[in-house]
């Protein structure tokens, strides 16, 4: 080491150079952190974030009250809010322990042994079970109109709208035409668990058909866009008092759930709208990017996409994505082997999914 070099090693460190070194180190750390990123789960359809703390507080406040007594089994406050919201009488609204329970109870009331329950397919895997529990036969319609599958043994039709897992949406006019074409004795269970995610028309467009079609029962949930899956809350609106009474839980919904739902209905509209817009925006971006990659994606109106890669089974695609740290629902258990269902989340999740799909292709 020369004379000057010896002293230069004691020189000041240039701040700009130091910052560059820091930024480079941070970039390396971030890259390493991304490589260590935990698996991202896009298999579920429930809302991924925790509910607003005030909703939880409402439930906790009720828990600190008189929980030794039974709750209001008619859930009067919640039903009144729902009735006002949808422009129906409160006695046409039933609050239940989740949409699935309401559908299950309604199916048990409507179906008997030997009856048939018609449904589009692929659709929500619970529907065939509903028929089986009632001793009826599920009739899955994979292509063509549901109305064509109706015969004199058909007791009810169940429609998921937007459909899980395809995300397809039947508009209110098309639905009205379908309902008009069905025999008068037939009941229709309209599962609108995902309806808040559609941006094709007004959120209540199909629900308003309960006035024109007395045998229509519309079921909704607080598990999806409201993000309250753990509280198990849903509601049904219809015109048939017998079906409504059958669908209602015998001793009502627990007091904590009623308190949380009531708070969410009173204060949650802005957040619901924000979530709806965020999903619609991200759904479009993700759909476009996936199609640019040559992937088949159905036009979804739900908070997930129904994806297919030609020449690849859904299981293989799901496994390939799993190896990239992205968990999706393979289509087999949902009714179609060649697809996968991937939830629409934020931009970061979309980027992870896109990168994983690119790597698998």
């Amino acid at each position, binding site marked *: 080491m020369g004379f000057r070099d*010896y*002293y*230069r*090693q*004691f*020189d*000041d*460190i240039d*701040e700009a150079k*130091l910052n560059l070194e820091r930024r480079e180190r941070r970039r390396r750390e971030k890259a390493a952190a991304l490589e260590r990123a935990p698996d991202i789960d896009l298999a579920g359809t429930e809302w991924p974030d925790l509910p607003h703390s005030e909703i939880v507080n409402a439930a906790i406040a009720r828990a600190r009250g008189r929980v030794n007594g039974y709750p209001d089994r008619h859930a009067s406050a919640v039903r009144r809010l729902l009735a006002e919201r949808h422009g129906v009488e409160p006695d046409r609204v039933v609050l239940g322990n989740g949409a699935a329970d309401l559908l299950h109870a309604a199916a048990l009331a409507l179906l008997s042994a030997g009856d048939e329950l018609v449904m589009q397919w692929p659709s929500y895997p619970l529907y065939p079970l509903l028929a089986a529990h009632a001793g009826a036969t599920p009739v899955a319609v994979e292509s063509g109109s549901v109305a064509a599958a109706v015969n004199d043994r058909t007791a009810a039709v169940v429609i998921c709208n937007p459909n899980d897992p395809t995300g397809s949406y039947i508009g209110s006019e098309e639905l009205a035409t379908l309902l008009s074409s069905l025999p008068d004795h037939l009941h229709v269970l309209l599962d609108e668990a995902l309806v808040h995610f559609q941006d094709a028309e007004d959120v209540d467009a199909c629900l308003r058909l309960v006035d024109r079609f007395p045998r229509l029962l519309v079921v909704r949930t607080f598990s999806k866009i409201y993000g309250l899956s753990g509280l198990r809350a849903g509601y049904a609106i219809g015109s048939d008092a017998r079906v409504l009474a059958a669908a209602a839980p015998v001793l009502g919904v627990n007091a904590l759930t009623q308190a949380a739902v009531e708070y969410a209905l009173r204060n949650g509209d802005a957040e619901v709208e924000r979530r709806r817009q965020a999903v619609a925006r991200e759904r479009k971006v993700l759909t476009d990017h996936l199609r640019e990659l040559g992937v088949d994606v159905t036009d979804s109106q739900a908070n997930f996409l129904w994806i297919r890669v030609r020449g690849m089974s859904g299981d293989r695609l799901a496994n390939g994505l799993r190896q990239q740290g992205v968990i999706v629902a393979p289509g087999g258990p949902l009714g179609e082997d060649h697809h996968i269902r991937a939830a629409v989340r934020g931009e970061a999740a979309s980027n992870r999914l896109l990168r994983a799909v690119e790597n698998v292709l």
Partner: protein
Amino acid sequence: MRYRTVEPTSERRRRADALFAHGLLAVELLLCLSLFGPQPLAWFWIGSQVDYQTGYVTAGIGTIMIGCLASLMLTMALAKRVDHAWKLVRRAAGHRQERGALERIFATSVGVALVLFTIWFFVIQGPGPTLAPGT
């Protein structure tokens, strides 16, 4: 200010660096002091020569002003380099030397120059004619 922490060298080298640092500090002090005596005097002499050679007083005064200013800047640039070297040598000698000493040395040299000037003005040269009209 940040600088690298270098593994300590031998004690002998450190002592030599400490001595070297003192030398550099002395150079800095001399450079600063030169601003208040030798350099102006030198430029006064040069200015008088210019005046004598050209016959223009203005040329002499201009030379003095420009020369003083130029040598001030050159001296400060040189002093700054010496100060930086002093800082590095101090660090090499094992001191946690974050800043240079030029500001303090400059201030000290101004103080010294002021004291010397005062002594020269009032004691050596003596009071002016209004105070002592007889001298």
